[in-house]
């Protein structure tokens, strides 16, 4: 590899080098977890198939029609909005998490593919998956079978609701699972139709962190006992602790929090305030906002000073935390009026310099241009042979002796077939040739795959 590879000379050994993990994860939670393990040196091999398109992994469809790409819905993000010859190698979400990973194509739904899969299991340390139980049973991914083949295997299973239980075959994405777990209703606007609220995926992010941590815990368990282990990390159960205090208020006091929006339970102001629009033609993209929080009387007085509003500082409605909180709508209206003609970045810095917690609500361009983000080296230019040269987000943490750089671009479909078939599965040259000829080992989805 030359493209996207930096600093390999005299490079320090990475903490997970020498470990091999098979990856049959889909969508975002699972792949985001294996990304961390690959970043830190594990050999993560994505098992893919040229005859089946894994839902929402390398895009939503293998060959999306132009009309769909134009809508930019469902995580499209193709370079220049062009799906290109091999759209599956050009999807933004996939190309974010798939760096450092390897890719092999083999069809686990046919006996020949299962035989190769068994060889890979025998020679690997872990397998990570995030699908419903029935899909995994169909592919023969059960602890009983796999631990028989490799008793030292660390098997990480991340269905939404568990491998046992009433929802074991209930297939969702993060947003539906979060809806069931209560997050959208908790965060949506007060006194509004809940249908207008957001639907984000913090559970997918937490799922990735949980999957990677589960593997490290499995590894420690194996080091102590010599035995493999199955770890069950249902993404819903993994996510619920991130709403811990709301669970506790219900179980301790019977209180059901709902539709909180940006309200804080006791601070005001605590809100997003509209600022002066940026220039631009696309509605929505020009909107600018700042968030401001006052946690004490002193901070509120400082805010009034910056607002040059001595009357506000003396206003009985806002004297003291409780009064401000009670009259927060009126206060928000006044602050909004003040922010409406200001630049959010200037404002956030001025407020922070005065000891007030504030921030610009940043879009993607703001993040790329942010001086703090730049100084901490969050982005790195990486060249991908089919998606071009782009700034790539690197790592979310800074470790003093573990390198923080991208060494290899996102993997192409089937890019490592020869290595995996021969070196890992132990097939001969002739055998490998056979798999290439039958199309099992390839770099394109079959024509009939949509």
């Amino acid at each position, binding site marked *: 590899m030359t493209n996207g590879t930096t600093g390999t000379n005299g490079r320090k050994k990475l903490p997970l080098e020498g470990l091999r993990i098979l990856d049959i994860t889909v969508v975002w939670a699972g792949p985001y977890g294996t990304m961390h393990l690959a970043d830190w040196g594990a050999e993560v091999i994505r098992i893919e198939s040229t005859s089946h398109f894994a839902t929402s992994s390398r895009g939503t469809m293998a060959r999306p029609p132009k009309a769909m790409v134009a809508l930019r819905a469902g995580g499209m993000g193709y370079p220049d909005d062009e799906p290109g010859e091999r759209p599956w190698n050009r999807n933004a979400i996939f190309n974010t998490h798939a760096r450092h990973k390897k890719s092999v194509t083999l069809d686990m739904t046919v006996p020949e593919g299962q035989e190769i899969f068994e060889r890979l299991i025998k020679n690997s340390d872990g397998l990570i998956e995030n699908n419903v139980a029935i899909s995994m049973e169909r592919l023969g991914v059960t602890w009983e079978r796999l631990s028989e083949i490799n008793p030292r295997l660390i098997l990480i299973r991340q269905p939404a609701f568990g491998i046992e239980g009433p929802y074991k075959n209930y297939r969702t994405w993060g947003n539906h699972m979060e809806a069931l777990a209560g997050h959208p209703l908790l965060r949506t606007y007060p006194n509004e139709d809940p249908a207008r609220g957001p639907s984000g995926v913090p559970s997918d992010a937490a799922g990735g962190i949980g999957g990677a941590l589960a593997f490290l815990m499995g590894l420690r368990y194996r080091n102590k006992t010599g035995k493999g282990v199955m770890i069950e990390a249902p993404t819903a159960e993994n996510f619920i602790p991130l709403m811990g205090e709301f669970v506790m208020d219900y179980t301790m006091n019977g209180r059901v929090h709902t539709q909180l929006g940006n309200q804080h339970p006791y601070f005001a102001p605590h809100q997003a305030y509209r600022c002066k629009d940026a220039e631009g033609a696309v509605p929505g993209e020009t909107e600018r906002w700042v968030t401001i929080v006052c946690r004490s009387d002193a901070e509120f007085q400082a805010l009034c000073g910056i607002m040059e509003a001595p009357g506000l500082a003396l206003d009985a409605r806002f004297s003291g935390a409780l009064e401000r909180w009670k009259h927060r709508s009126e206060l928000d209206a006044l602050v909004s009026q003040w922010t409406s003609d200001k630049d959010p970045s200037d404002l956030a810095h001025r407020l922070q310099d005065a000891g007030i917690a504030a921030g610009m609500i940043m879009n993607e361009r703001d993040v790329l241009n942010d001086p703090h983000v730049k100084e901490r080296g969050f982005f790195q230019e990486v060249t991908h042979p089919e998606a071009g040269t*782009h700034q790539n987000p690197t790592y979310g*943490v800074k470790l003093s002796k*573990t390198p923080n750089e991208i060494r290899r671009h996102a993997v192409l479909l089937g890019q490592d077939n020869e290595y995996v078939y021969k070196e890992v599965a132990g097939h001969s040259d002739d055998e490998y040739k056979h798999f290439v000829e039958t199309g099992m080992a390839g770099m394109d989805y079959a024509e009939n795959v949509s």
Partner: protein
Amino acid sequence: MTEQTTIMPLDDVRVLDLTHLAAGPFCTRILGDYGADVIKIERRETGDPSRGLPPFYKDEPGTERSGLFMFLNTNKRSVTLDLKSDRGRELVLELARDADVVVESFAPGTMDALGLGYVALKAANPRLVLTSISNYGKTGPYRDYLGMDINLYGMGGNMIGAGDFDHEPVKTAGRMVNYHAGYVAALATSLSLTSVELDGQSEQLDISVFETATHSIDGRLGRLMGYEHNGHLSSRPTRAAAVASGAHPCKDGYFLITGGARFLPNIIRMIGMEELLGKPEYATPAARANPDLIDEFLAHLIPWTLDRTKAELRVEAEKHGVLGGPLNTIEDLLNDESFVAREYFQEIDHPTTGPVKYPGYHFVLHRPDGEDGAEISMPKRRRAPLLGEHTDEVLSGALGLSVGEIERLRADRVI
């Protein structure tokens, strides 16, 4: 020697926990879940400031009444210590000598000012992992800026794209951004433990809540790459972005569905209108990507959802492979059949509250440690400690101090 009956991944790891509030305690709580001995250092008399934050049991404040503190501090031992006194600082260094990990969440520079910076800790223990969690990290122009979930999410997460086009952008609930950072810190700390075991060299971790949000609390990573690919900026949608997508009203609330050209056929089958698939405007993915279909199809879908409850819709969605889920309250969640059947929520007894249910484990190890490889279930968690509950136990046990020495420290107001 006590008999070791079961093995947990971190049962040989001691964590010296100098964190407070949300992100740090969330990190050490997870390390405790998987077996680490977590020694939590608390300020004398008042303790972790989260003891003073709601929800309080029966809404009455008190040092031992915060549900937030109880949730965040299971499986920890509490030691009160004055970090600003010379003797207190020495005791921390002595505890660090026998610890594998120190986690701290003070503002950048505070640990150095206390004489407990990386250099001092490394001198005490050359194999130490030092995990520092702060709002913006130890370097960079925002280093000393104030955090708060709403700001950190606004800067780091996809808040600009969260919510409705004619409303303000909306944050994630509660302290989720801080908790996420704590979770990432637990992962990075565990990696670093592996690393130290390999080469015997200590490591320092700089965890920025802002950076972990950017990397990413809600899929921002993919959006950043998307922007790099085609210049598309996220914004709050002016309308449903795809056919059949949205939170639709039903008999007893709302049901969230993901539609779109790819998934629409299953939704059409679910509502029993297969004949639509025979029509040219619904026959192919390209045809179904027509934005004009959005309103047209909702006229078929919503009467059908209005006729059914959330629970009925969930069953239908599962049956037809439709991506969907009910908009539940926390109360619905606690009573949901899946979490009840799996006994996910764990009852923990506490002197203030009696037995109360807490969120369960993030993940469960199915350990074949029983007789003939039978599975041993996960251990029960220990309740959060009372303030200073383990001061004597830790000072005598871990540091070997005598009763007289401990009494003197107490008289000198060090502990």
